[in-house]
């Protein structure tokens, strides 16, 4: 077992904080090259430092990242933020296998949920954030339906976010609520909203109650 893997397992035993798992599926295909990927990386880094500054969220929020660009890569297994030491810089290139990437993400979530149950660690509804500027070019319908069903059954907060000319109709099929479009390249505002949402969830006294999230009008557009 490698070092991080051991720490991830041990944390569930020594840190009984209820968990909020958040998996980012990032489209890192060729079309994201240039400013979009740059802003995405910056926004992500801000997100990490914001959550890390939050006294409770850093022990509660677990971040996982799947990169979809010319193949699917599990860039970060679900790891409590206070244990994350570094995240790689994402480069853009290749096509957009979003279906496979979401499938990978959902499987990561299932595995982690099994670990939560085995250690008696309570958890909030996990989050799946799908960020893409295009549409999937692999077999995605079945996976989309899986995510959508989980979202409808309140087993998952599925949040597809379209960048520039992304096909929102396709992205919306990954959730029971409509996809949102990022206004311009407001990745920073989006990730600030995400960290504020994570802070609200993790300071909630209940793992079962509904949480009122902050308004999204800082980053989305009609």
């Amino acid at each position: 077992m490698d070092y991080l893997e051991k720490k991830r397992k041990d944390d569930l035993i020594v840190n009984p904080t209820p968990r909020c798992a958040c998996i980012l599926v990032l489209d890192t295909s060729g079309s994201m090259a240039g400013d979009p990927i740059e802003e995405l990386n910056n926004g992500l880094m801000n997100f990490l430092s914001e959550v890390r500054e939050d006294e409770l969220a850093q022990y509660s929020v677990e971040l996982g990242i799947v990169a979809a660009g010319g193949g699917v890569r599990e860039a970060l297994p679900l790891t409590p933020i206070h244990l994350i030491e570094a995240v790689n810089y994402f480069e853009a290139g290749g096509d957009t296998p979003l279906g496979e990437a979401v499938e990978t993400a959902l499987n990561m979530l299932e595995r982690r949920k099994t670990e939560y149950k085995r250690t008696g660690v309570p958890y909030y509804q996990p989050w799946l954030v799908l960020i893409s500027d295009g549409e999937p070019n692999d077999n995605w319908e079945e996976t989309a339906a899986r995510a959508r069903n989980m979202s409808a059954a309140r087993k998952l907060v599925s949040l597809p976010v379209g960048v520039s000319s992304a096909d929102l109709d396709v992205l919306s099929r990954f959730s029971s609520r409509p996809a949102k479009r990022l206004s311009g390249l407001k990745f920073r505002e989006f990730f600030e909203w995400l960290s504020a949402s994570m802070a609200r969830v993790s300071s909630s006294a209940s793992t079962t109650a509904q949480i009122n999230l902050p308004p999204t009008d800082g980053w989305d557009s009609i």
Partner: protein
Amino acid sequence: MRPTLSQTIARMVNPFFIGKTARKERKPAAAYPAGFKRVTEVFDRLGQPKILGDPIAKPGGEGCVYFLKDKPDILVKIYHPRKLEGHRAEYREKIEAMIGIKDEFRDFPVCWPLLSVFDQEKNWIGYAMQRGIGAPMRYLAHAVAYRKHFPYLDRTLLLEYLVSFVRNILFLQEKGVFIGDYNMLNFLCDTRSDKVTMIDCDSYQIEIEGKRYPCPVGSPDLTPVEHHDKDFRTVAHTKQSEAFSLAIIIFECLMLGRHPYDVVGGDDPVTNLRRANFPYKRGNTGVPKGPWRNIWTHMPLRIRKLFIETFTEGVNDPEKRVSAETWLAELKIYHADMRAGKYDKNINPLKKLVKVTPKAEPKGIEEDETENYVD
């Protein structure tokens, strides 16, 4: 791709270094959520202006709390305009009813509303209160965070905070005040003493001149079953209903943030609570792996019995829940015994057998767990 030497060095200096060049990001001057308008000036009833300082924290769900400029021991809570819309009179009535009895709480560690505040158009927008000192009890009842916020914490100090806390609860109950929404972020533990200060009191259930002002919020993980799935605005909290929430708070403090109904192979804490599935009960299974069983068995048998009573039979029978008076008496005994060296003071007690003198335990207890845990 292997990192270059310069990248390795940069990462050692800054763990968030994520690539070719260190990406220094300037933060916007005011990182407030969209739509939030910072208030800089409020007025008292006579129209005298008061200048506000910075918010003490990011705005919460209900409103934003500011320092009063030049008087940092006074805070002002301003409700969000959208919260007051259509409910201004209702909010104002409750807060002003609380202000009406403020003298009863003057020398007591509770940040009671003291004064209404208005905007320039004389609309009621919030209230002023004393500032509380300390770190939230949530950081104390937290297996990781306590090390930073309470670096000198041991179980004697933990018990001292709990004694202060239960005293506060009893004092409030005497005045007909019930907390209702128990939230460990709203109990501040002074890190230089054993004082516990209650903040965010505007949600408390109060009764004044026969009129009950309810506590409109709550969370099922800390609430007795008879209040589950109900609109909290219609719930009447009593000593018995509060006793259940109180026991959970005491348990979480003694168990470093572990909820009494965290069960291995069980369901979520709320479902376990409803089923009275308390894993530490003798004969029950599902205690999570880790230090919890050891901490539990180091507690005096009497304390353990109080928890078992409240968390099993007490779930559906409010009469079986241990009262705040009993908790106060028993925690004081526990504290005195611990100071006398009878119990391990370590936050994580050593796993050796600590001999317990038989006369220390009351007669008539059937359970055979008189010894502490041996690994």
